[in-house]
């Protein structure tokens, strides 16, 4: 068998090997590993990757928060289901004042970057706000199942190129971008939408527990996306731990010496040949060589994979998506209250990770105590309100002035009087 045919045969296996059936557990594990990597950057992972997610997207969350936390910690990500609406939010031009190509209306982000020229599908995110992610390390093993679930196809392809049973690898998310609208803008937009759609939201009012206590109370939330992170290019590097033995790889060619420095011309030819085959294997019209209809029906993945470097023990691939894909987001959750009204927003990430959040709620008037009576007239003097607001931002978790003065915050009021009023006399 000539080297070219061997290469072709090996790469023809890429699609087949990479998309072979695996158990649900294996798929879930890969999804979790990927998601944990993204979560490490304080971003809620999107799985699978999608281009069609943007600030202003509103999802109905019907799972109790405790169960969401379980799912999030167990799976590593939250399925994005029940898309309710996409808010037509304006405010990009003001928020990104002076930023080129940022405007409101039909060309609001990300449209001007996704489709810079009418009729052309080529994206140009060169003027979008950039982001950077750390490199993620991982281990893969054929015996543990690989790998239609990982959202970058470079990993299974690389493992097949290495012809290795297991490998350590690194994924670098290059060409990352982010854009957002402030929560404040989203707050107004979602409240206006909630009022206009109160009849729809009313069906998601809180459900009280059953009289016998067997059915727990149920609450529903609206999750409003306000920032997304996108990636266009993914670099995958794999370092072989071990190679298959002859017996274990029946029918599989031996590792290909892709980079033979002693023969630069031959190496260049092989690189070109591999990249040609990869290009065909990952294009939407290609069928793997020698495959039947079943193989042709395998799901095809979106990016273009190119071989960057290869030796007998390592391989590096660059996967470029046609347009940047959203890999993660930040959002706020609004509990749907009685009558379809919305409660104060809570940061989704904080909820999912069990961090404390300060929420505006109904509070009970506690009376204006001695310190409240001192603060009220002091507040009327010019400049004092700004001082108190800054102090509350730093010391009171951003509590509202009205809540601070007559709510259950006697200790905080005492501190404010001591530090702001008595301290300045």
């Amino acid at each position, binding site marked *: 068998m000539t080297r070219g045919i061997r290469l072709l045969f090996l790469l023809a296996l890429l699609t087949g090997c990479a998309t072979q059936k695996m158990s649900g557990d294996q798929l879930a594990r890969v999804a979790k590993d990927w998601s944990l990597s993204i979560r490490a950057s304080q971003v809620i992972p999107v799985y699978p990757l999608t281009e069609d997610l943007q600030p202003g997207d509103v999802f109905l969350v019907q799972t109790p928060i405790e169960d969401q936390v379980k799912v999030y910690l167990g799976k590593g990500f939250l399925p994005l289901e029940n898309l309710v609406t996409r808010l037509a939010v304006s405010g990009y031009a003001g928020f990104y004042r002076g930023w080129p190509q940022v405007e409101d209306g039909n060309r609001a982000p990300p449209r001007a970057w996704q489709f810079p020229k009418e009729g052309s599908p080529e994206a140009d995110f060169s003027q979008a706000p950039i982001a950077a992610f750390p490199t993620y390390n991982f281990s893969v093993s054929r015996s543990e199942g690989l790998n239609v679930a990982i959202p970058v196809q470079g990993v299974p392809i690389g493992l097949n190129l290495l012809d290795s049973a297991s490998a350590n690898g690194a994924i670098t998310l290059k060409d990352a971008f982010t854009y957002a609208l402030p929560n404040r803008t989203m707050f107004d937009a979602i409240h206006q939408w909630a009022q206009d759609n109160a009849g729809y939201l009313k069906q998601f009012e809180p459900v009280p527990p059953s009289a016998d206590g067997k059915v727990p109370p149920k609450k529903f939330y609206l999750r409003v996306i306000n920032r997304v992170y996108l990636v266009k290019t993914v670099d995958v590097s794999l370092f072989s731990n071990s190679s298959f033995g002859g017996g274990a790889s029946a029918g599989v060619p031996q590792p290909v010496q892709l980079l033979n420095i002693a023969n630069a011309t031959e190496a260049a030819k092989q690189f070109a040949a591999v990249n040609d085959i990869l290009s065909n294997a990952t294009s939407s019209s290609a069928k793997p060589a020698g495959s039947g209809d079943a193989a042709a029906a395998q799901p095809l993945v979106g990016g273009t994979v190119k071989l960057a470097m290869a030796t007998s023990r390592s391989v590096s691939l660059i996967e470029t998506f046609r347009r940047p894909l959203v890999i993660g987001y930040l959002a706020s959750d609004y509990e749907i209250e009685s009558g379809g009204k919305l409660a104060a927003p809570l940061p989704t990430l904080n909820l999912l990770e069990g961090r404390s959040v300060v929420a*505006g709620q109904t509070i009970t008037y506690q009376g204006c105590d001695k310190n409240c009576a001192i603060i009220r007239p002091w507040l009327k003097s010019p400049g004092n309100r700004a001082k108190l607001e800054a102090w509350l931002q730093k010391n009171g978790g951003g509590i509202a002035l009205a*809540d601070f003065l007559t709510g259950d915050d006697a200790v905080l009021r005492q501190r404010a009087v001591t530090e702001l009023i008595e301290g300045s006399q």
Partner: protein
Amino acid sequence: MPLQPPSQQLNVPRDDVSNVVDTMLMDTRVKWIAVVFQDTVDSTDRFIITPHIVDPTRGATT
């Protein structure tokens, strides 16, 4: 960063309603405030004060 929007307050006695409303209105995001009679306890009328950031009269009524 602005402070949190003010919360709805329960049990506000009549003679302090104006002060609570005044403080809520210090937050310039608050555009509407609903003052609703709650009950009378020991001859003191008490009110529920609800600040609104968006127009509560727009959209469907509940």
